[in-house]
């Protein structure tokens, strides 16, 4: 048997085919490439059978901890995923297809993308959505770039309530571009209206906000966005989609561009990906939006169908003048999220949001009652909040890991002076009992 798995030709086939192309051997096919460019020195092991590979991988995987009770969120959450999500999205017709360049042969992918766009628009309270981007961080960067294209300005203001993980990325991406990037510190847990007022002038192209913000605080950004609009700047709001099951939407607040991380809509945490960046905007801004967009149209017989549309924005046509260099979306992840949202439905999705909120609310009361623990900010929150502990938060986390609890994310990793601050997150998966245990253990290590 061949040493190359997965190939489909038999030795006899190969002989016939080599003959047909007038070659003696495989090497012949590469004879136009100078020999000194070729090598057979590869320091790799021999191929494993499927069985050996799985045994090897299972052994490695077992080195991960698997029994931890997790309260660590920081923008990435451990939600329940109904079984039907995997079952449907693992159909070969979905996952072994590619970009719908031939729409007649890809209506499954295209219609699902159109449905996804509809759901994202409705969740965010916006008019249109693209078919998805890589992740929440690059989506925010793309949102910022879109705002600068719209305004033809190059100054950006960023609230520090925006995830520091994303702000780090923004700083990487803007390094080589002629962009004036400024961060505005939070005030009392929310965007500092006064500071923004000071900085907002007609040089500002984009203002980047986040709700709920990194500390879990929720805020009505309506007034701030009005301020932003007064200088004709574009308000970009990053959001956590599960919160939109209940919270006032960025659309209702007047946002121009909404982005976010869609991981919570049916993607497992999977050590960081693949996730899903989403982006929604107003209809009038759509031609400035990056990424694939699916539109409904008709075929020659008047039947409804779907196509990739507004491609004139994209790199394969515009090349260096394109709205973005992005040439794929995260279609399989977008599919997961529309299947997830359909399974939960209008009420189920709101229920999930309520449960996250209620669990966080209960934990808030339990945890801040512990001696020496106090709220960092006393503001409404959704499913996550920050507490100031009487000792170093990293140490507390380290102690509780020993007890099988990932207690939260230490804010000090990103915010100077917050060494004692711990960020606790809650989803529908965490039970009252688990929260009680967290409270008890936390008390015991403080």
């Amino acid at each position, binding site marked *: 048997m061949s040493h*190359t798995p997965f*190939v*489909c*030709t038999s030795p006899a086939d190969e002989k016939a*085919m080599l003959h047909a192309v007038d070659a003696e051997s495989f090497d012949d*096919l590469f004879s*136009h490439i100078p020999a000194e460019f070729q090598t057979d020195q*590869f320091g790799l092991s021999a191929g494993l059978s499927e069985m050996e590979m799985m045994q090897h991988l299972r052994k*490695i995987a*077992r080195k991960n901890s*698997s029994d931890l009770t997790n309260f*660590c969120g920081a923008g990435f959450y451990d939600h329940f995923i109904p079984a*039907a999500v995997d079952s449907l999205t693992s*159909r070969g017709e*979905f996952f*072994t*297809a*590619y*970009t719908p*360049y*031939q729409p007649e042969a890809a209506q*499954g992918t295209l219609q699902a993308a*159109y449905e996804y766009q509809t759901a994202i628009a409705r*969740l965010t309270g916006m008019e*249109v*959505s693209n078919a998805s981007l*890589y*992740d929440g*961080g690059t989506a925010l960067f793309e949102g910022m770039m879109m705002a600068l294209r719209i305004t033809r300005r190059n100054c950006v203001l960023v609230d520090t309530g925006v995830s520091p*993980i994303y702000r780090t*990325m923004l700083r*990487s991406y803007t390094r080589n*571009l002629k962009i004036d990037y400024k961060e505005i510190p939070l005030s009392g847990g929310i965007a500092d209206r006064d500071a923004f007022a000071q900085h907002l002038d007609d040089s500002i192209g984009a203002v980047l906000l986040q709700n709920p913000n990194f500390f879990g605080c929720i805020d009505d950004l309506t007034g701030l966005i009005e301020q932003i609009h007064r200088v004709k700047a574009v308000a970009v709001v990053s959001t956590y989609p599960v919160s939109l099951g*209940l919270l*006032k939407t960025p659309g*209702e607040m007047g946002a121009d561009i909404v982005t976010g991380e869609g991981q919570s809509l049916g993607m*497992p945490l*999977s050590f960081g*990906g693949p996730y899903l960046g989403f982006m929604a905007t107003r209809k009038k801004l759509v031609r400035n939006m990056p990424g694939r967009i699916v539109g409904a149209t*008709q*075929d*020659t017989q008047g039947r409804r*169908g779907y196509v990739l549309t*507004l491609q004139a924005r994209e790199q*394969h046509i515009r*090349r*260096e003048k*394109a709205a973005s*260099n992005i040439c*794929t979306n995260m279609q*399989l*992840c977008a*599919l997961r999220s529309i299947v997830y949202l*359909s399974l939960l*439905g*209008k009420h189920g999705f709101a229920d999930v949001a309520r449960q996250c909120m209620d669990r966080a*609310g209960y934990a808030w009361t339990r945890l801040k009652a512990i001696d020496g623990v106090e709220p960092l900010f006393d503001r409404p929150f959704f499913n996550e909040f920050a507490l100031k502990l009487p000792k170093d938060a990293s140490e507390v986390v380290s102690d509780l890991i020993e007890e099988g609890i*990932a207690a939260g994310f230490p804010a000090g*990793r990103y915010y100077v002076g917050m060494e004692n601050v711990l960020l606790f997150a809650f989803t529908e998966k965490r039970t*009252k009992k688990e929260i009680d245990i967290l409270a008890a253990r936390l008390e015991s290590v403080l």
Partner: protein
Amino acid sequence: MKLIFEKSSPGRGGVRIPEDRISPEEVIPAELLRSEPAELPEVSESEVVRHYTRLSRLNFSVDTHFYPLGSCTMKHNPRACEKAASVPELCETHPLWPQLRHGGLLTQGSLQILYSLERILSEITGLAEFTLQPMAGSHGELTAVMMMAAYHRDRGNKKTHIIIPDSAHGTNPASAALGGYSVVTVPSDENGVMDLEKFKEAVNEETAGVMLTLPNTLGVFNPQIRELIDAVHAVDGLMYYDGANFNAIMGRIKPGDLGFDLCHLNLHKSFSTPHGGGGPGTGPVGVCEKLRPFLPISRVAKTKDGTYTLDYDHPKSIGYIAPFYGNFSILVRAYAYLLMLGREGLRGTSNRAVLNANYLLEKLRGSYAAVSESRCMHECVFSGKSLGEGIHTLDLAKALLDRGVHAPTIYFPLNVPEAIMIEPTETETKETLDEFVTMMEEIMELSKTDPDALHAAPVTTPVGRLDEVAAAKNMDLTYTGDQND
């Protein structure tokens, strides 16, 4: 087919959520809540299952159809890789755990996979180190351009442009631009490779680097590559290898050996992670020794005691370009695939990929005009110009759909009129290729005898040709039929 929103009926329920058993004291003030719940569908699980099962069946896919989409490497996705990626301990790990104090111990398995995959990719490409963070090929390109910029900044070089051949994918110039560079385009010569004279004219002290696909999008391996690279290195420019076509040479040629300084690989092409209907892809980037300091953080390192850790202490790094460590579960698939291919399998794969393409090239030469007289690499390009009067490559594409084969890539590369770009991959049988040849010949014949039949195609698909102009004009991008506005 109806939309899932059109199947919604008020009061129908989907998957049940646990009864809420916690009522907190804290409640969110009403002014912070949305006025109406989002109008998501109200449907049962059985409706969702039937809807998306039926939708899936409207697609062509590798699992159901031959899919010779040039430049996309639509090979079979081994099921073992899917299974590997679904191992629960790998799916349930929070990406921030290793950033907690002592948290690295919680994710040794995941870190080991990342580390091992990086090492394999380095070995395959002859480059010193890889970052697995880029979440698609074009994201890899951008990451590479950012590293180029960081390198030149560090060296005090004044560089303004990147050189790109006219046959390149559109992502190359777009990525260069997003990295802050202008783009200098060099035309191809009659053999489809970059014109060496024109290239040498373009290279100067302001050249930050060159982005090159090898073999190029015409499937041609540039024999003057070494000369080209030397010219770039002479001005301290950097050579970037676009790995889009790596399936043609893997196990045989290491870009690093040729002198390339950076390289991205499309795991969804050469390493068989699924294309997913348009993503997620993944585009790791490898660099030569001198570019190591500029790699994105965090980096996975192996400590002396054999444990794996995240390393952030790289002051020259371009920083984070992804929130975490890349599309992890896709990386697991590629790792599984490479473990199964192994040493011999790598070359065995590219051997067959190239044989299959050459076989098609040879068999189709008689009826279609090949762009080159020589052999091809893993894909072959034809022009549809010899199709009958008034019949275009687009008509050919649609006629193939009617015959149960996905169309090749068409109208790309841009420098071939009526281009037809065919990449069979190594995971198709000779029988499938032979059937395809017969179909192609039949369509050529039909284009001359019954052109109307081709204009009407496709007729066997769920919809016929769609009005793309109307789509762009009407901008019907979300469903609103259930709303009063």
